[in-house]
C-alpha cells in the first residue's frame, strides 16, 4: 500500500508539473498549445539520451532537456505568435503530430516504437538516486521549484504583462508592451519546465516510448488544466490529482472490460470538458470560489480566457 502511494505521488508530481506549466500559457498568457506532450516527450528523450551516452548527472540531463525543448518551442512560437491565437493552435497541433512521427521513426535516438529501454538511475552531485522513496522526494523537490518559479513569475511584472495581454492585446500593445516577445518568452519558459517533467518521467520509469507523448496526452494535460480551472494556481493541481486518481477508481468498477478502460477514461475526460465548458467555463476552482458559476462575470475572470 505504501509503495502504491509512493508511486502515485511521484506520478502526480510529474503530472502537476505538466499541468502547472501548461496553465501558465493557457491561463495567464491566453495561448492555446496542443503540443505540451511533445515538449514533455522531447525533454524525456533528451534526458534519456544524455543519461545513456554521456553522464547520469540529473542536473546535466535536465539542463540539456530544458535547453533543447526551449529551442524547439522557440522555433514554434516565434512565427506562430505574431498572428492570432488560431494560428498557434494549428501550428502546435502540427508540431504535436510531427513529434509523434519523429519519436516513432528516429530509431537511433528514440528506439522507434519499442522506445528507450534501460535508462540508468540518475545521480545528483555524484550520489545515486536509488529506490522509489528517494525518487519521490526528487520529484516533489522539482515540483516545488517549478511551482515557486511559476508563482513568482505570475506575481512579477512579467506576469502582470501576460495577464494584460490575455485580457486585451491591443490595450497592452498601446501601452508599449512587446506583445509578441512576451508571449514567445512565456511559451519558452512553459515548455522548458515541461521538459523537467519529461526528464523525471524518463528516469523514474527507466523506459520511455512514444505512447506517453501522443496527442491524447496533450489533451489529457489540457483537461487537467481546464477541469481544475485555468488561470488559477490551485486549479491545475486539483485537476491533475483528480484525473490521475480517476483511473484507479475506474479499475474498481468490475463491470468494465479491462481492455477498454483507457478509452472509457478518455471518453470521460472528453465529456467532462464538454460539460464544464457548457456549465462552468471557469473549471472546478472557478466554480468553487465563484458560487457554482452563477456569477458570469466571475466565471470570465476565473479563467474563461479570451483568445
Amino acid at each position, binding site marked *: 500500500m505504501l509503495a502504491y502511494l509512493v508511486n502515485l505521488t511521484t506520478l502526480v508530481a510529474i503530472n502537476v508539473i505538466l499541468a502547472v506549466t501548461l496553465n501558465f500559457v*493557457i491561463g495567464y498568457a*491566453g495561448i*492555446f498549445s496542443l503540443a505540451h506532450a511533445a515538449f514533455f516527450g522531447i525533454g524525456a528523450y533528451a534526458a534519456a539520451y544524455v543519461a545513456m551516452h554521456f553522464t547520469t548527472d540529473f542536473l546535466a540531463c535536465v539542463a540539456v532537456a530544458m535547453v533543447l525543448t526551449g529551442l524547439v518551442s522557440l522555433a514554434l512560437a516565434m*512565427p*506562430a505568435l*505574431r*498572428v*492570432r*491565437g*488560431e*494560428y498557434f*493552435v*494549428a*501550428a502546435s*497541433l*502540427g*508540431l504535436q*503530430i*510531427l513529434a509523434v*512521427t*519523429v519519436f*516513432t*521513426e528516429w530509431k537511433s535516438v528514440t528506439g522507434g516504437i519499442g522506445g528507450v529501454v534501460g535508462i540508468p538511475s540518475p545521480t545528483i552531485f555524484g550520489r545515486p538516486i536509488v529506490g522509489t522513496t528517494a525518487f519521490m522526494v526528487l520529484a516533489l523537490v522539482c515540483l516545488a521549484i517549478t511551482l515557486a518559479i511559476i508563482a513568482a513569475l505570475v506575481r512579477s511584472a512579467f506576469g502582470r504583462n501576460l495577464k494584460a495581454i490575455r485580457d486585451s*492585446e*491591443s490595450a497592452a*500593445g498601446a501601452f508599449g508592451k512587446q*506583445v509578441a516577445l512576451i508571449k514567445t518568452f512565456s511559451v519558452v519558459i512553459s515548455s522548458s519546465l515541461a521538459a523537467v517533467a519529461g526528464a523525471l518521467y524518463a528516469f523514474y520509469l527507466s523506459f520511455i516510448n512514444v505512447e506517453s507523448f501522443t*496527442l*491524447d496526452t496533450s*489533451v489529457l494535460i*489540457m483537461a487537467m488544466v*481546464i477541469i481544475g480551472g485555468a488561470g488559477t494556481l490551485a486549479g491545475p493541481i486539483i485537476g491533475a490529482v483528480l484525473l490521475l486518481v480517476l483511473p484507479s477508481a475506474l479499475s474498481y468498477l468490475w463491470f468494465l472490460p479491462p481492455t*477498454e478502460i483507457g*478509452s*472509457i477514461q*478518455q*471518453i470521460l*475526460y*472528453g*465529456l*467532462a*470538458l*464538454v460539460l464544464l*465548458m*457548457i456549465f462552468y*467555463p471557469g473549471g472546478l476552482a472557478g466554480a468553487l470560489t465563484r458560487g457554482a458559476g452563477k456569477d*458570469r462575470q466571475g*466565471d*470570465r475572470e476565473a479563467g*474563461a*480566457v*479570451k*483568445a
Partner: protein
Amino acid sequence: MLLLQLLINGLQVGAIYALTAVGFSLVFGSTKIFHVAHGAAFTIAGYIFYMLTVKAGAHWLVGLAGSTVAVLAFGVLIDRLVYAPIERHEGSFFTVFVASLGVATIVQNLIGTMFGRGFVSVSTPLSKGVEVVQGVYVSPLVGISVVCGIGCFLALHLFLTRTHVGMALRALGENRDLVRAYGLNPRNLSTLALALGSLLVVPGAVIAAASSGLNPAIGAHVMLISIAATIVGGVGSLVGAACGGLLLGMAENLAHWGLASQWSEAITFVVLLLFIIFRPAGFFGSAIKT
C-alpha cells in the same frame, strides 16, 4: 513515371482534403466556431459507411445515405447541444474550442471501442488501378474524387451566391448583428453552417474508406489538414481552403518521391509553418492579426 503516379495520387487525396477543408472553412468563416470536431464528423461518416456496407452487407447507396444522415445529425446536435448553450452565456474562442476538442475525443474513443483501433477498409472493384501508361496505375476512384470534389464545390458555390439562405450565411460571417437586425436568426444559420460543413466530409470519408482505409485516429489527421488548409488558403476564403487542401494533398504525395510515407504529416506541418512565417494571409484573404 513515378512522379506522374504520385501526381495522380496527390490529385485524389487533394480533392478529398479540399472538400473537407471547405467544410471546416465554411463553419469557421461564417460562425467563428473553431470546429475541431470536424475531424470527428469525418470519422463518423467513414465508419457508418463501413458498418452498413461491410458489417451489414447493404448496398453502397444505403451506406452513403446512412453516413449522410449520421453526419447531418452530428452537425445539428453538436451545434444545438454544445455550441448554442456556450454561445448563449459567453462563447469565447477558448471555451468553444475546448468543448469541440472534448467532442472529438469522445467520438474517437467511442469509435475505437466499437470497431477496434486497427485499420478497416471497404473493398470495391473501383479502387483497383488500371495501367494507363506503362507503370502508371489509375483507379476509377481518382476520377470519382475529382468529379465529386468539383461537383460539391460548385453546388456549394451556387447555394451560397444564388439562394437567400446562402447569402444570409455569408452575411453571418461579415456582421452577425446586422443579420439579426434583418430579422434572421443567427443561431439557425449557425446550425445550417454546421450541417452543411459536416455534409461536405461525406464524399471524402467514403472515398477514404474505399481506398486508404480508416482508423479511429484519422479524425486528428483530418482536423490538422482542415485547419492547415484553411490557413494556407486564407481564412474566410472557401476557394482558398479548397486550393489549400489540394496543395497539401499534392505535397503529401509528392513527398513520397524522396521520403517514407510516415513523413507525410511532417510535410503538412512544414507547409503550414512556411505559410505562417512568410504569408500568414494565405493565398487569398487577409491575416487575422491581433
